[in-house]
């Protein structure tokens, strides 16, 4: 493979791997997680290490910071600022952490200790490494918070992690990582747990910091949009080996290796959109009078009962979904999009308004009648690992709706399960397998088969692909499209991923804080958004093309400047 000429730099690498191999000794055999990897990260440079789950990207980074479990067998070199850390004694390694190499974790909710103040956690590494003590350390910590964009840092430093939002917590984690001026920062999926708009802000912050501090960043991610936005160079990992290395432009625009090609082809892309507005929508087509409404919400209000106090999760929402149509509901976390799906599934009572399936209002239905309605609704959940009972063989999982609604004899049920498995392209022999024997994508296809068991008229898909790798996601989305064309069910598709909704849905509802901010045809809403929030959302979603992403980034900056500050 060709390694592109790195930026000229006399001071050598911030982090480099030389023929690094990691294998794990397990009870039964050795597992080769990383097979002879060589990679350099120079100061002030962002190198993205991309790959799907199980490719060994996290193991590589963990080897550099010396946190691999004791059953790991490491050969080769991992040089942090020219010092080999492979086989280094634990007490020496500890001195290098934070001052030479630091880490930003994926989940800001769990990376901070909830019972200590931010001050205590920020000054800890400064004091441990003898850089500053007492008031000096606090002063430095306040500087750091200011640097990562936490407003009013002198006051907020005394607060606890739960008093900050998710994005702010990730900023604090970044502040901790840069506190001792490390030569290199490992960012392990730093934005995966965040909403797109927050993700865009964190990416901006990282870009700003690496220029300011001249730190090398090893960015580990599966998101090609993030790569396009932040990285200078890209290394693609597959089954423990590097299959392709190059500048972000080379790899994303002219991939050479078939795996990279396949990976990039699998990423759903948003069509170009003018986020700054000034686009007149196509005239709205008249509503087809012959269409059959499958799902209808009118002034729907949904509430969670939190120990007596009501929390309004969905407020005054109306939409219509006709047969053969896919309605996408998009929004960020906390927007109430999954709550709508829950209510349709009968997992949450309707507080007020109308939620009707085929004209039958679910809100006023008795439990027995509601059960009959539910036979016509199929569901696919987000996490295929959790949505199949681990004690049910696949056959039982698929036929469960028939058992529940007392449909068919045993032989008929088995025949139906076989048909459905064929429809989702799985071999019939899977019938007697257990969920843990299948991969994530296969499990999700089993979930799709289960959802279709009773020929539903309505399919609820609640983030069906967000727990899957991109190449598997593509296969699952294709399958939903194919089955939808074949069985013509209506589908309510809940997702945070605008590109997926763009790909799949006919109509879309954009939700924010429980309210619909914009709805209509996908071609109107996602390609010519009228509402500021939709524009912001679209502008924040990164695309896996570095030049286009640079244009989008600039457009987003303009958009945020144009917007009048509110409240």
């Amino acid at each position, binding site marked *: 493979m060709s390694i592109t000429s790195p930026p000229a730099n006399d001071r050598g690498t911030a982090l480099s791997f030389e023929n690094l191999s990691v294998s*794990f000794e*397990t*009870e*039964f055999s050795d*597992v080769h*997680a990383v097979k002879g990897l060589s990679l350099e990260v120079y100061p002030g440079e962002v190198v993205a290490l991309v790959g*799907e789950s*199980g*490719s060994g990207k*996290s193991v590589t980074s963990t080897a550099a910071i010396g946190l691999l*479990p004791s*059953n790991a067998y490491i050969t080769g070199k991992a040089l942090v600022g020219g010092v080999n850390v492979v086989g280094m004694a634990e007490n020496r390694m500890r001195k290098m952490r934070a001052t030479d190499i630091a880490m930003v974790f994926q989940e800001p909710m769990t990376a901070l200790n909830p019972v200590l103040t931010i001050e205590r956690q920020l000054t800890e590494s400064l004091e441990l490494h003898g850089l500053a003590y007492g008031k000096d350390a606090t002063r430095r910590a306040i500087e750091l918070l200011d640097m990562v964009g936490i407003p009013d840092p002198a006051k907020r430093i005394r607060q606890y992690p739960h008093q900050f939002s998710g994005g702010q917590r990730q900023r604090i984690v970044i502040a901790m990582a840069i506190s001792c001026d490390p030569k290199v920062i490992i960012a392990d999926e730093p934005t995966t747990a965040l909403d797109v708009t927050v993700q865009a802000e964190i990416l901006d912050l990282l870009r700003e910091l690496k220029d300011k501090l001249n730190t090398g960043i090893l960015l580990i991610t599966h998101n090609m949009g993030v790569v396009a936005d932040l990285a200078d160079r890209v290394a693609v990992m*597959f089954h423990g080996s590097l299959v392709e290395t190059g500048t972000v432009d080379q790899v994303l625009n002219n991939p050479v290796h*078939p795996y990279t*090609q*396949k990976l990039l*082809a*699998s990423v*759903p892309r948003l069509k170009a959109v003018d986020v700054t507005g000034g686009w007149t929508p196509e005239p709205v087509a008249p509503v087809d009078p012959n269409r059959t409404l499958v799902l209808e919400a009118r002034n729907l209000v949904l509430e969670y009962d939190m120990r007596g106090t009501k929390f309004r999760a969905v407020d005054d929402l109306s939409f219509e979904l006709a047969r053969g149509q896919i309605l996408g509901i998009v929004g960020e976390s906390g927007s109430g999009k999954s709550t709508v799906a*829950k209510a349709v*599934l*009968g*997992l949450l009572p309707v507080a007020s308004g109308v939620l009707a399936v085929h004209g039958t209002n679910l809100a006023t239905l008795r439990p027995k009648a*509601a*059960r009959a309605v*539910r036979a016509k609704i199929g*569901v696919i*959940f987000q*996490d295929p690992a*959790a*949505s199949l*009972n*681990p*004690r049910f*063989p696949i056959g*039982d999982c698929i036929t469960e*709706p028939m058992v*529940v609604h007392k449909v068919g004899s045993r032989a008929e049920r088995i025949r139906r399960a076989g048909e459905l498995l064929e429809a989702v392209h*799985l*071999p019939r*022999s899977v*019938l*007697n*397998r*257990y969920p*843990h*024997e*299948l991969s994530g*994508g*296969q499990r999700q296809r089993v*979930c799709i088969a*289960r959802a279709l068991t009773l020929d539903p008229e309505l399919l*609820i898909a609640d983030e069906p692909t967000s727990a899957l*790798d991109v*190449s*598997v996601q593509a*296969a699952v*989305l294709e399958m939903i*499209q194919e089955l939808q064309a074949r069985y013509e069910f209506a589908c309510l598709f809940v997702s945070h991923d605008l590109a997926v909704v763009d*790909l799949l849905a006919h109509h879309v509802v954009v939700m924010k804080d429980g309210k619909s901010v914009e709805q209509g045809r996908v071609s109107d809403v996602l390609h010519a958004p009228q509402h500021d929030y939709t524009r912001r959302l679209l502008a924040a979603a990164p695309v896996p093309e570095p030049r286009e992403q640079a244009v989008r980034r600039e457009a987003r900056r303009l958009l945020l400047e144009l917007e009048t500050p509110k409240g």
Partner: protein
Amino acid sequence: MTIEKEPTEVPAVLLAEAEDAALARKDSVSLSQGQLVRRRFVAHRAAMISTVALAFIAVMAFSSIGYAGIPGWWDKDYTMAGSVIDGGRPTFSLLPTWLGGTGLAWGEHPFGQDSTGKDYFALVMRGTQQSIIIAVIVGIVATVIGAVVGAVAGYYRGWVDAVLMRMTDLFIVIPLLVLAAVLGQIASRTGNTTVVLALVLGLVTWTGLARLVRGEVLSLREREYVAAAQSMGAKTSRVILKHLLPNTIGVIVVNATFAIAGAILLETSLSYLGFGVKAPDSSLGLLISQYQNAFTNRPWLFWWPGMIILAIALSVNFLGDGLRDAFDPRQTRKARRRSKKEEVSE
């Protein structure tokens, strides 16, 4: 707009397709759930040995002296006193003649005699019967009540949970021995002391399991497969019995084995205090308490019942281990290896 299909051949990197191929290549023997459980249980060596040992003890206990009026093959009765022969020493021997023993011999009183000349084998067998009956009844009663109370409380939460758990707390704060003693007294006035005593013990020892199952169910009910079952219209009873309780089987089985071992010991304490089984009837606990002073000069009076209690308790524990592994589909060797792989490679 559709997803771009991959027209060109891309060997070994089409992930979804490669996974399917791997799945098809797997050994295609398909087994039903029952067959799988049975097969895994049989493969568990300790559990199989325990099952055989437990079955042997039970068959010996019930066939030797008979039960409920049906006569057994042993000619002596546990109530019949007689003259003490050779200080009541056991005549049972395993030592072969060439080592100075008498060969494999059963003898007149294999387990010896007690101070009044009663045949100790008959007494121990009677005691074993009582302990097995108590163990089985307590195991069933405590497990069923505990699992149901815990599952219902965990599933419904809210006031149902509050009421059931306060009731559980109430049972926990009442001293077990006092309650069992009082109820045991009433029980002894009825005809079948042992069975009633066992029911009473079962009614007061379900609390630990109820709390454990509630905790498990509270976390399991948030899983998506429960939401999936609810949304397909499954009744609450089905959700609890098919989706929640089977996934708590590990906790239930382990706890049931503890409950059984505990019940045998509880019966021992009660009999020792004089509230449980009373002479001339016999139980293993009663025998131990009666002859604890004989330990120095006539140790067999202590060893025989003690060893049988130990054998039953150990066997039940191993049996529980085997059952838990057999019921868990992820507990196969192959699967364990794969899950480890997944853990380390991410």
